[in-house]
């Protein structure tokens, strides 16, 4: 009996090659570099370096400033993710109910999506400018002694506000299409089964949006971790006293401003591990619950 043999040809490899090359060049190679660098200690002028094992890790991660940044990052990410999801969901639910002028309303809400984070940061800067900033004046006028240059709470407020504002529109688009994907008859069935609209929302609409919410949660946490860099860099720059420094911003600060390549690389590696762990947790434990 003859067994069927498939001819092996090089063509399939050719097709996946671009993808593989991109992953190697833009991800694996830099990651390997970072891991390598994280074990080296350079002298102040970058002329020579020495293999120091985990000294860079000990020095940076156990430092007070890193722990502060880690704490802020966790709080900041939680706030940005929660607030931008909650706000976007509220807006999407309301927009979904609008019948007249619906498209104008929706387009307006989507606009912020087109704005890059650094630009959002610059706009925020203008609004919180002590001399000409409308929001700055407004907050002070309503009796809040607001000064984000000096007060760390106020500074945190600024970066959270701008980051949330920037992200709401993306979440809004996804939530809106998620809402429109819920079959009308299912909602009608619930209308006959339950008279409280709030209860219907939490027992029918919200669970049916769970896949969207989960997806957005992953996206938003990643956003809060990495992409808000541009906002922080153009507004507070981590000030006052490192109160609004996120881990990513600290990598940049220590590496480029402080020229501590080894320490900065060590931080990057830790960040990579954290994100990896977070992703695994999300997909392992949460995703299992959201699919029906």
């Amino acid at each position: 009996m003859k067994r069927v043999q498939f001819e092996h040809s090089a063509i399939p490899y050719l097709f996946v090659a671009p993808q593989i090359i991109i992953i190697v060049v833009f991800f694996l190679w830099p990651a390997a570099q970072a891991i390598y660098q994280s074990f080296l200690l350079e002298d102040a002028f970058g002329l020579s370096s020495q293999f120091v094992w985990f000294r860079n890790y000990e020095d940076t991660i156990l430092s007070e400033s890193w722990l502060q940044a880690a704490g802020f990052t966790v709080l900041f990410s939680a706030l940005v993710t929660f607030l931008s999801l909650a706000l976007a969901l509220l807006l999407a639910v309301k927009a979904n109910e609008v019948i007249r002028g619906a498209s104008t309303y929706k387009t307006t809400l989507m606009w912020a999506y087109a704005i890059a984070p650094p630009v959002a940061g610059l706009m925020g800067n203008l609004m919180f400018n002590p001399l000409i900033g409308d929001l700055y004046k407004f907050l002070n006028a309503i009796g809040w002694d607001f000064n984000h240059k000096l007060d760390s709470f106020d500074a945190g407020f600024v970066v959270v506000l701008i980051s949330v504002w920037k992200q709401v529109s993306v979440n809004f688009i996804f939530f809106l299409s998620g809402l429109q994907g819920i079959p009308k008859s299912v909602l009608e069935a619930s209308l006959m089964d339950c008279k409280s609209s709030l209860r219907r929302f939490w027992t029918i609409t919200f669970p049916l949006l769970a896949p969207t919410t989960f997806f957005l949660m992953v996206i938003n946490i990643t956003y809060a971790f990495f992409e808000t860099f541009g906002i922080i860099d153009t507004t507070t720059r981590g000030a006052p006293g490192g109160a609004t420094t996120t881990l990513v911003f600290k990598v940049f600060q220590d590496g480029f401003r402080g020229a501590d390549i080894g320490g900065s690389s060590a931080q990057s590696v830790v960040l990579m591990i954290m994100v990896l762990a977070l992703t695994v947790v999300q997909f392992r434990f949460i995703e299992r619950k959201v699919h029906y």
Partner: protein
Amino acid sequence: MSKVQLTNVRKTYPNGAEAVRGVDMEIESGEFIVFVGPSGCGKSTLLRMVAGLESVTSGQVLIDDRLINDVSPAERDVAMVFQNYALYPHMTVRGNMSYGLKNRGLPKAEIDQKVTEAAKMLRIGDFLDRQPSQLSGGQRQRVAMGRAIVREPKVFLFDEPLSNLDAKLRVQMRIEIKRLQRRMNVTSIYVTHDQTEAMTLADRLAVVNDGKIEQMGSPIDLYNNPATLFVASFIGSPQVNLLPATFDGQHLISGDLKLSGFGDLPTSTELVLGIRPDELRLDESGPFLLRVDIVEQHGSDNLIYGGVLGAMNDGDQETEFCFKTSQDMLPDLDSTLKLGFNDERAMVFNKVTGERLR
């Protein structure tokens, strides 16, 4: 046990579409009413106004003499079965069935008992802990029925509940729905475009056409005594044979054909003669000469389709007739059959208004 009453009910959608144009109806307690009509005639809209899913533009909807125009769907005490089942995809079968009861604040023990009972009645007891996505179409349909039954509503509403099922399952479920309704004796309104479903399920049938009730009555009454051309052609399968004609004072004239046995008809209007396929018979002296096109063998009887020689319709083509006969009648194709009809049972309509003249 509840009465449903509609008085001059109208519905105009925000886009201006007039879906329902003045419907009056009284449904007795425990009655099984079927709304039947072609697609887009407004039957779903009418049903949904009873359900509370569409607002009533004008007129009154009453259940047990209580005006419910502005009562929310959940407080009307009606339950609905949707065409695409509309089960809650994230809940188990049990969750689906108990959801409405939970929201009404029933104690858990009572809910469990009702769900178990309904599940037994519908033979879905083995699936109670499955998700809807793990069920077949027929099983989902049962769950949707179960969700309606456990509520013990005053009125059951069905919007084409069997349209997504295959033919065999459809017949089974049809019988089951009828049996359940008989057993529970709950007033029911059932929407369908399928006239077999309509004929077999209904205590009374309402034929809907263009937003109005064309005629209402028992299925057999509508079959035997249609009030309009529309009802005559909608009810009955195979469809009634229609022949355009005029009356010359003594005979009905259609093309080259001259039919006697008719009197007392207007001479100035265009008419339509309607003869049911089973009212035709082989008759050497009959007026029709049918050229056989197709013979369909349905088992117990055969349907013979063909053109009637000499009879032209509006498009100047030969009028097609269907002749229902016994299973041993197997004429050759293109042969001709001489047919007569029972003029007592023949119907004549005004072609323009559709009104039945005799």
